[in-house]
């Protein structure tokens, strides 16, 4: 559907791949000579066979538009494949950089062949087709609890931080223009503010793609990511505001006040539109049991509809689509079959991947243009000011917000937030949408430079710089084994006490919402049979999800030694490695919860794999589960799948790739890994609690496996 409209848009820019012969026209049945067209593309090739039927002919024009679109997408995907094939390059150079370079290359080629500017990324295409899938994907996989816990901080950074940046950059740029009066004199304050508003926007696409490679803890990830999502409301509103101010003859204080109200209206309006569509989508999914195949379609249709509706009403489309995704997720997942769930997740990943790749490639291509206007003072000062204002903004805001937060945002985190404020395609599209004025080309050039700078320089150096910061902290001696163990114990202890006490303050609202959810929403929006879900079952699913987030690699080989002699340094190292990989780190989670390339929260795989073996009181179920569920393991290859599969062979000390060989070996070590549950009382208590609840929803496919296993284990 959107491909069709996309092709209509793109066909406005004749792409033309070099090297193709001009298309020939199929001969008319009654042998009329071909009509002379204005461009050469309609004339047929050598005319010497007027009467005979052509056996072989090429009609490029007929398929031109879709063909070229497919070629672009193919180029993007092949480039992506290529990067992941080479192991080390993605670690050093973030994918976005590589894609932009490919785009530059292609753009250069096209320019060289056609001697005119290659097609640029149309702002409409970007906002209507390329951006929604990415934001939808981000919203659907948003770690909800973490997001809402940090919502205050995120809003603080998003709204106030963006305002600070916009005003700061705008005003100081105006100062620079005044100083360099000779070359930049005709840039007014409003223009500078307008430019500031679009250049201050931190881009979720770029941020995500860089954070992929870095291991940041979840809290930091959600802060930066949430901020980049939410600052859209502020950015776009300010942009439109300044643009409309530019059109007004004069600006009064009342207009500024109205502008402020508008920010709130846009943000909240987007939120409500998203809520509405999310609830409707949840309700619709309730009735899809007879037509399961089209159930995923509703997810996409409703989200896209919410985006378009809010764009139509000049509200924030990104807020709408994120809210829609977050709202409908839990109900849709409950209502829809396992396979539909998997389809939804896979399609989301696929589309957002393609979108992101296309965006970056087009960024590269569009850089090669005729319309550049360069001005050293403007460009350099913009770059500098962006960095400076963001850094000061983050520092100031954090100083205030740390007093109100439980987990302070450390200096390292602040550095990452400030330095990780990458600009991307949103700025790029916004700058193209400015009404024409003499210095527009300067703005375009500057925007491109800033984007390239942030993506390349900041993107590539952020990881080494962070590691440098970490190393500085780690100058003291490596902890001894007992220190690690004891500190981990204390961690768990504190986490447990935290959970007993409940989170003060936020817990009240969360409780209230959960009650409301249970009483009304779930009953209304979820199908009858699926409603009986005890909290234990939800814990079970949470276990699975956390399992996927935990470290999946198999431990290295370590020879057991006798107790008496002191251990060699290599053995200490291997012990330390084992500990660091295996001691559960539930509380300071290090891996990103969101990943563009893999489905970390793969619900289907989870339910067929039963990764409960880590939980102590359910430890003895491991034997039973791995052996029975082996046949259900599908040999699905996707990025990181070897990790998941190796996870099943955990009791092995050797990492294995294919499930086949491990099957025979699994039975032996598993028996040695049998652990006596520390507290037999609690394990039977948990089992008792789970099984009776499970009698009822034993209906559908995988759920049947679920209940079957639990019940038989009880026996």
């Amino acid at each position, binding site marked *: 559907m959107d491909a069709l409209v996309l092709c209509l848009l793109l066909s406005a820019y004749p792409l033309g791949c070099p090297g193709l012969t001009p298309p020939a026209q199929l001969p008319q049945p009654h042998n009329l000579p071909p009509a002379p067209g204005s461009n050469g593309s309609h004339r047929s090739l050598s005319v010497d066979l007027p009467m005979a039927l052509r056996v072989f002919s090429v009609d490029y024009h007929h398929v031109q538009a879709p063909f070229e679109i497919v070629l672009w997408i193919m180029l993007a995907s092949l480039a992506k494949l290529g990067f992941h094939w080479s192991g080390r390059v993605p670690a050093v150079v973030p994918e976005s950089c590589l894609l932009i370079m490919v785009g530059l290359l292609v753009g250069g080629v096209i320019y060289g062949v056609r001697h005119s500017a290659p097609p640029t990324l149309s702002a409409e295409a970007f906002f209507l087709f390329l951006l929604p899938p990415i934001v939808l994907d981000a919203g659907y996989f948003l770690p909800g609890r973490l997001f809402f816990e940090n919502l205050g901080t995120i809003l603080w950074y998003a709204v106030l931080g963006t305002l600070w940046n916009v005003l700061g950059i705008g005003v100081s740029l105006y100062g620079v223009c005044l100083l360099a009066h000779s070359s930049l004199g005709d840039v007014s304050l409003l223009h500078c503010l307008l430019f500031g508003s679009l250049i201050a926007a931190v881009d979720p696409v770029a941020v995500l793609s860089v954070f992929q490679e870095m291991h940041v803890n979840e809290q930091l990830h959600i802060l930066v990511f949430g901020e980049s999502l939410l600052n859209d409301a502020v950015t776009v509103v300010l942009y439109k505001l300044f643009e409309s101010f530019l059109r007004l003859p004069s600006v009064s204080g009342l207009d500024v006040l109205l502008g402020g109200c508008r920010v709130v209206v846009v943000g909240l309006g987007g939120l409500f539109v998203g809520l509405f569509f999310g609830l409707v989508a949840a309700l619709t999914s309730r009735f899809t049991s007879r037509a399961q195949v089209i159930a995923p379609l509703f997810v996409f249709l409703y989200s896209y509809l919410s985006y378009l509706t809010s764009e139509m009403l000049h509200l924030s489309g990104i807020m709408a689509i994120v809210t829609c995704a977050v709202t409908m997720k839990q109900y849709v997942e409950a209502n829809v079959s396992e396979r539909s769930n998997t389809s939804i997740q896979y399609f989301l990943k696929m589309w957002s991947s393609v979108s992101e790749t296309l965006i970056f490639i087009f960024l590269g291509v569009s850089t090669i243009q005729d319309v550049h206007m360069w001005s050293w003072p403007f460009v350099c000062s913009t770059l500098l000011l962006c960095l400076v204002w963001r850094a000061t903004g983050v520092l100031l805001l954090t100083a205030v917000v740390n007093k109100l937060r439980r987990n302070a945002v450390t200096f390292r985190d602040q550095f990452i937030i400030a330095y990780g404020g990458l600009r991307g395609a949103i700025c790029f599209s916004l700058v193209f949408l400015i009404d024409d004025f003499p210095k527009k080309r300067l703005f375009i050039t500057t925007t491109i430079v800033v984007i390239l700078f942030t993506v390349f320089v900041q993107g590539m150096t952020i990881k080494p710089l962070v590691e440098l910061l970490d190393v500085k902290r780690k100058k003291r001696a490596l902890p001894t084994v007992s220190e690690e163990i*004891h500190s981990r114990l204390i961690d768990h202890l504190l986490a447990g006490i935290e959970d007993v006490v409940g989170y003060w303050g936020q817990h009240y609202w969360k409780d209230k919402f959960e009650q409301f959810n249970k009483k009304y929403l779930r009953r209304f929006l979820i199908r009858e049979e699926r409603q009986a879900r005890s909290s234990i079952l939800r814990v079970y699913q949470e276990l699975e999800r956390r399992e996927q987030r935990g470290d999946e690699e198999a*431990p290295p080989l370590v020879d057991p030694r006798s107790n008496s002699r002191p251990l060699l340094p290599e053995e200490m190292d291997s012990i330390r490695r084992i500990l660091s990989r295996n001691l559960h780190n539930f509380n300071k989670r290090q891996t990103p919860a969101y990943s563009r390339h893999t489905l970390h929260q793969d619900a289907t795989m989870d339910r067929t794999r039963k990764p409960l073996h880590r939980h102590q009181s359910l430890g003895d179920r491991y034997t039973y589960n791995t052996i029975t569920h082996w046949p259900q393991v599908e040999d699905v290859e996707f990025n990181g799948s070897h990790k998941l599969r190796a996870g099943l062979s955990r009791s092995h000390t050797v990492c294995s790739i294919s499930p086949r060989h491990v099957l025979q070996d699994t039975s032996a070590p598993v028996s040695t890994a049998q652990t006596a549950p*520390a507290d037999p009382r609690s394990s039977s208590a948990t089992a008792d609690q789970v099984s009776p609840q499970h009698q009822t929803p034993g209906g559908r496919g995988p759920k049947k496996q679920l209940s079957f296993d639990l019940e038989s284990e009880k026996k």
Partner: protein
Amino acid sequence: MGSRASTLLREEEIEEIKKETGFSHSQITRLYSRFTSLDKGENGTLSREDFQRIPELAINPLGDRIINAFFPEGEDQVNFRGFMRTLAHFRPIEDNEKNKNSSASEPLNSRTNKLLFAFRLYDLDRDDKISRDELLQVLRMMVGVNISDEQLGSIADRTIQEADTNGDNSISFNEFIKVPPVDGEQDY
């Protein structure tokens, strides 16, 4: 919510708890509302099942032991006083308390008492020593089934080796508190 809680908890009780544990008035009322929300049976005491209903505690590797720590020896129910007494171990050390050395006995939330609490998580049989087996059990809980018994055994031996100063192949409380924890215990 707040008003309902304080009518069930009398002022004198709050004062007593305040004196014993050092929590402030608002903290006590908030903890009381948490206590009542956990107490599904509404009989004024918590049982083990009430604790196990907390989802995050169920996936905490030390969840069972933490729950056990709330219940005094041999009992199956804990009332609000006992609940508060256990939680008092984790109250953050206020700055003004660090200077006070007037109280005869150490406050419940001193560093030593916190470490004693952690020590008791290891030491199930309360003989004031962490034996190799007890250490192994806790390690196994924290580490999962990923590691073979031999590897775990060597880790446990190494731990005991590092901490044991008097050579009895187990860790006493005095040896335990000498191990400085990484990152410090967070003043919770």
